[in-house]
C-alpha cells in the first residue's frame, strides 16, 4: 500500500523542479520544458486523487490538460521560432524590449 501522500510528495517535487527550472534557466526552450514538467507534476496529483476518491473525472481532466499542453507547446514553440528570427538569440534576458 502506497499512501496517497507519497504520490503527492512526488508530484510536488516535480512541480518544484519545474518552477526552479523556470526561474533559473536562461534558454527559452528549457524554460518551456520546465513548464511541461510542472504540468506533468500536476497531472500526477490529479490521477492520484482520482484513484483515492474513486472518481474517474480526475483522469478525464488529465486528458484535457494534455490537450491544452499540446496546443500550448505548438503555439509557444512557434513564438519562440519567430522571436529567434528577429532577435537571433535564445537567451531570455535579451528579449527585453519592454523594459521601462
Amino acid at each position, binding site marked *: 500500500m502506497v499512501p496517497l501522500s507519497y504520490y503527492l510528495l512526488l508530484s510536488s517535487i516535480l512541480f518544484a523542479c519545474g518552477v526552479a527550472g523556470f526561474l533559473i534557466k536562461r534558454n527559452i526552450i528549457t524554460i518551456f520544458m520546465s513548464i511541461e514538467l510542472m504540468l506533468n507534476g500536476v497531472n500526477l496529483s490529479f*490521477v492520484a486523487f482520482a484513484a483515492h476518491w474513486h472518481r474517474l473525472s480526475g483522469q478525464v481532466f488529465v486528458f484535457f490538460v494534455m490537450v491544452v499542453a499540446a496546443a500550448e507547446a505548438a503555439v509557444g514553440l512557434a513564438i519562440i521560432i519567430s522571436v*529567434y528570427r528577429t532577435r537571433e538569440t535564445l537567451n531570455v534576458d535579451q528579449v527585453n524590449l519592454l523594459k521601462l
Partner: protein
Amino acid sequence: MSLHLILFLTFGAVCVAGAVNLLAQRHPINSALSLIAVMGALAGEYLLLGAEFVAAIQLIVYAGAIMVLFVFTIMLLNAGEEERTKGSRVAILLGVPGMLIGGTLVAWVLLRHSGTGSAPVGALLGDPKMIGQLLFHEFLLPFEVTSILILIAIMGAVVLATKPEATEKRKAR
C-alpha cells in the same frame, strides 16, 4: 515492502532524477531527453494507479509528440549551451539549498498525513471505455471546445512560424 512500493519508488526515483537533470544540464537537448525520461517514468506511475488510458496517452502524446516537437525545435534553432555566468552561479548557490529546504518542508507536511489515504494498485481502473463514456457524456462540451482549441493552435502556430520571405514570395507570385 510490497512490490507496489518498490515499483513506485523506482519510477519515482527516475522521475526525480530526470527532473533534477533537466535543471542541471546546460545543453537544452540533454534537458529534453531527461524530460522524456521523466514522462516515461510518469507513465509507469499512472499504470500503478490503474490509469491505463492516461498512461498510454502520456506516452503517445506527451512523450511521443510534444517532446519530439521540442527536440525538432532545438535542432532547428541550433540552440547551444548556456554559458556559466555570475548570475547562474549565484542561482545555484542560493537555489539548491533553498530548494532542499523547501522540499523538506513540504515533505514533512505531506508525510505527516501519511495515514489519511491510500492508493492501492489498480484501485481505479481507467479503461478507455469508461473514459470514453465520461468524455462523451458529462464532458462533451469541454471535449468539443478542446477540438476547436487545437484547431486554433494549429492555425496560430502556422501563422507564427511561417518564414516572412515565404509570404512575400506567395504575394509576389
